Every structure is written in structure tokens, then in C-alpha cells.
């Protein structure tokens, strides 16, 4: 398996294989000695050389976060052979989705369909645990679509609006 992985804008090329059940690993062409035990679902005990790490994999809405000890990373993993990752990359340039950061209730919609919006401007207000949170536009553009109505219950990751 070969992956292109980017973290914080830096790109890595990772080659992984498991001849006879043991991992063999090359990072940017450099051979690395690794040994891994899945301690429980989503928890890997890694040995790199003789250094030991506990690594956690966390699924947050549609994102995957990797925790090394108490440090958090948001890697983007692409399998260059996979079609899905290519279409995902194209998605970044086009319309952007506004998603609910947590489950809650839509209490207000601040901008109407077709309205101009600045980057960072609030579009939808979601309430949870008696606190209100403005979901902000990730870019400057126009509101292509509002997908929720006031009073609606939403789950984390639900698309609230699309900005073009």
C-alpha cells in the first residue's frame, strides 16, 4: 500500500506492506523499523525502533484525527490509486459546505438563500446545552442553498448550508 498523507500542509509518502504479518514501512523513501499491536479498537501500540507510542484514532463527523499521546493531528490520507480520493480533492475548490459542529437545534438562520456572505460571517445559529453557536462561512461568496429550517434538530456533521 502506498499513501500520500498530508499534515499541516506537509506532504509525506508512506509505503506500508505486511510480508509474513510483519509491517514494513518506508516514509519518504526512508526505511523505518515499526511494530504495531492493536490494543483495542482505534488504539494502536506502536514501536518505532525501541520507542513506544500509544496512538488513538478518533472519528469526528467526517474527519479522522490521530492522537499521539496528547497531541492531535488531522491527517489527510490519499490512496493515489483510489478514484474516491481524486473526486474528494476536486471538492475542495468548488462549493463549500457548512456543517453542524455538534448535535443541536437550529435556532436562527441569519442569511437567506442567494445572499452575499463574507468569510467568517455567521450563517446559521445552532443551540446545544443552553448555549448558542454561530456556524460561520468558510469563504467569501454567495449562499447557494440553506438546507435546514429554524427549529430543526441536527446531528454533528449535518450540512446546514452551501456557500458558492
Amino acid at each position, binding site marked *: 500500500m502506498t499513501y500520500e498523507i498530508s499534515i499541516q500542509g506537509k506532504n509525506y509518502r508512506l509505503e506500508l506492506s505486511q510480508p509474513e504479518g510483519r509491517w514494513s514501512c518506508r*516514509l519518504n523513501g526512508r526505511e523505518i523499523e515499526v511494530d504495531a499491536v492493536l490494543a483495542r479498537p482505534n488504539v494502536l501500540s506502536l514501536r518505532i525502533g525501541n520507542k513506544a507510542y500509544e496512538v488513538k484514532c478518533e472519528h469526528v463527523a467526517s474527519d479522522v484525527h490521530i492522537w499521539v499521546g496528547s497531541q492531535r493531528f488531522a491527517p489527510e490520507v490519499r490512496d493515489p490509486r483510489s478514484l474516491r480520493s481524486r473526486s474528494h480533492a476536486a471538492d475542495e475548490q468548488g462549493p463549500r459546505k457548512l456543517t453542524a459542529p455538534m448535535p*443541536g437545534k437550529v435556532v436562527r438562520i441569519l442569511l437567506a438563500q442567494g445572499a452575499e456572505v463574507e468569510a467568517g460571517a455567521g450563517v446559521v445559529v445552532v443551540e446545544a*446545552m443552553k448555549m448558542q453557536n454561530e456556524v460561520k462561512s468558510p469563504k467569501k461568496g454567495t449562499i447557494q442553498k440553506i438546507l435546514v429550517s429554524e427549529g430543526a434538530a441536527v446531528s454533528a456533521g449535518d450540512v446546514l448550508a452551501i456557500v458558492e
Partner: protein
Amino acid sequence: MFKKILIANRGEIAVRVIRACHEMGIAAVAVYSDVDRAALHVRKADEAYPIGPAAASESYLNIQKILDVAARSGADAIHPGYGFLSENANFARACTEAGIKFIGPTAAAMDAMGSKTRARQAMERVGVAFVPGTSRGLESFEQAQQVAEQVGYPVMLKAAAGGGGKGMRLVHAAEDLKSALESARSEAERAFGDGEVYIEKAIINPRHIEMQVLADEHGNTVYLGERECSLQRRHQKVVEEAPSPVVDPDMRRRMGEIAVRVAQAAGYTNAGTVEFLVDQEKNFYFLEMNTRLQVEHPVTELITGLDLVHLQIRIANGERLPFTQDDVKVRGHAIECRIYAEDPDNNYFPSPGKITLLLLPSGPGIRSDSGMYEGWTVPMDYDPLLAKLIGYGTDRDQAIGRLTRALNEYFVGGIRTNISLFRRILNHPDFRSAKIDTGFLDRMLKQKNEQPDFQADAEATEVAVIAAGMFATLGSAAAGAGERATRDGASVNAEASSNWRVAARREALR
């Protein structure tokens, strides 16, 4: 002794009280709202009864529904926990009328301490110092002006029925007084249905120190030492510790004796807490009395070796305090972190949702009082407190060391929590040297966090890259565990489990 106790609460405190019941051989009855059927307190209880919709006003705050469950289940006492109905004198009265023992003070004692102005009047009568100002609600703007001049600016306007910072205004200069008074009044009216507002001198960046008291129903009252609760955000406590680093034995005795006098003045019984503001010269002033078990009671339990919930139940059962003031000894140091479902990257906004992975800390000096479990969905309808992590040590440094170690073991996945905030606090030089006051946390949060949201540490980044690739390779096989993390190993594992299933089916068919 009681045979069965109903716990009129949810979350970690309901679990805490259920555990105490079971330790004493008492059956525990849980109540739950529609969104709490899967909550931990329901799993731990002996009996559980639904009490209605998610909205607290239609479930956990509904006195009649709770009394109905008490009657149906045959409970002989009710523990209210904290929050919800715990400081509601009408509830205490209704319990008594229904012939069910309320585990807490009497309704009369709650009435005496429930209003901040009435409590100040009571303190005036027994000669306990409170922050200079009025002990009655303000009658006019002119009166407010006069008192403010007398005590000197800055002054604080406070709602008599207040709590949680509502109806509270800090006024720095005379020209701001009028508008502040009007807005405090209307906010208090809206929040508590009572616009009574009083005035006191503002003590800038005080310490907030409280004294635990315990009184039986035979006239014996003791104090169990103080808790330092200066670390607050939006007037909510975040970290508490006992003993306070600034209180010496002499100050503890003076504060404790006053707290006992306060409790006795109110005819107080059961567990209660007397809160004080402490200025830079260590003068302390009565602030208010909390007529319930506090969230932060475990730090007192650890340094005194007492179990406050057991004692609450024994006192409610009519027993005498099993020790005297001289028997109470403070030993070691304890610090509590309140783990909230809050997003540190989004101004600590609540973050409910499903807990997909939970790794709990353990080991020497660590206590975890929790209301959550892996796979549980934190509902969006209640306070975001998930759990409390308490570290105990021979001294403050050891307690900090143990707590820091435990925070590094602690992992809650799927939702955001404020665990990272405690790492920052416990590492902060001012916290380490105990230079803390109620402004500490706001000041710390204004400083730029040296730890960015996402890390860029070169070594850890490489580890994350490798692990990300492995998780991607394992895919759904990462759901198996305890095996060498290989695709082959995982599939062998799956076959093994199905063999077990085949064998079990064969057994069942015999």
C-alpha cells in the same frame, strides 16, 4: 436505616450517590428523562422510572412526578444531588409532607440562606463579617448612589436570588451606576422572577474559599476544612483544591468557627458549604451559604478520609455525628478537575455527541467520578459536566504530578472536552506557585496558548503519519483488538469468534 433511597438527579452525582447507597446496603432508585434512558445512573440503579421529556422543567425539576415515583417505589428518602431541586425549599417541604425524608437541610434553613439579602441580614444579627454594602434590596437609585459613595468604587450589584453570574454588574464609576442598576434589575427579574438587587464593595481579584460544614439533628456542627475554588470561568468553578495553599491552621480554625456560627444561625442540618471572599491581605468575608452537597466535595473527602454522602445519609437517618471537631484532621492535598463536554477550539462551547472511545486514568492517588461510558451519547439538554478527575498526594506538588500524569492517560474520543485546558492550568507557573485568584483563568486564556490546536512536533508528526496509514490499511479490521495489528491476524480473529459462535449454537441445540 433507610431501605431505599430515590436519587432525584442524573449524571455523575446520581452515580456517586447510588454507589454510596450500595456501599451501605441500601437500594437505589433512579429517575430519568426520555433522553437519559441509556445514562449510566440508570444502569447502576436497582430500580429506574421514567419521568418525562428531556426539558428539566418537565422531568428532573417536576416535584410531583418525583414524589409519585417515591411513592410507587416505596422509597423512604430522597437524595437531591446538586443543581435541579437540591436547593428548592418547596421540594424539601413537599417531601416532608409526603412522609419521605429529604436528605439535606430543612426547608426553613434553606429559606433563611436561599436569598442573599436575607442571609446577609442573618449574618448582621450574629456579627459575621460580610462584604461591606447593603443587607437589603436597594429601594432607589439615590440609595444606591449613597451606599456606593460610602463603601467606595468599584462596587458590585448583585441579585438577591442570584447565582451563576446572572443579575451581577461590576461598576467602576458613579456615572455608570444608573444604567448598571437598571440592567441588573431587569436581568434578575427575567432570570429569577425577582428583581431585588443589593450593592456591595467589589473586591478585585479575590480568592474564593469555602468551608465545608456538617451538622446533625442533635445540635452538633463541625467544619471539615476549606476548599480553594478561585479558578473560575463565567462564574463557574473549573478547578478546586483542598486545603487552600494560603490558609494556615489558625486561619482555618477562625474561618471554620465562623462557618459553624453561620450554620447554627440558620438552624442548619446535614452537609452545607459557607463561601467566603478573601482579599489580598487574607481578610475574609461571608459571601453565601450553599445548602447542598457541592460538586467539589471529593477533595474534602480525600483530605479528611470521610465519606460525605454516607454521613449525609446517616444524619438524615437521625444519627449523631460519629466524631467531634478535634477528630477532624487535614492530611495531604487533593485537586479536582471538572471534565466538561466543551470545545476548547470554539471558545469552550458545549460539545454533546457520541463518545466513540474512552480511556480512563487510574493508579495511585487518582479518583474518577464519572457519568459517562464508551458508546454513550451525551445529550444536548443538560449541563455539560461529564466527570470529575481528582488527584490526591502527600503534598500539593505530588497531587499536581499525579493529576498531570492521569490527564495524559485520559482520552475521550468522539466529542470535544476541556481536558487540554487542565494540562495548561497545571503547567502554569502561577498555578504551580499557587498565585491564583478569580481572575487567573481569564488572564491565562487571554495569553496565547503555546500549544496550537493541531501539533507540528516533528517526531510525533511522523508517528501520526505512520499510524494514519496503518489505520487506513486496517480499515474496519481496526475494530478487532488484542492481536498483532495485521490484516491477516484480524481475519483469523474474526474466524475464531465465529467458531465460538458455531460451538455455542451446537451446545444450545443439544
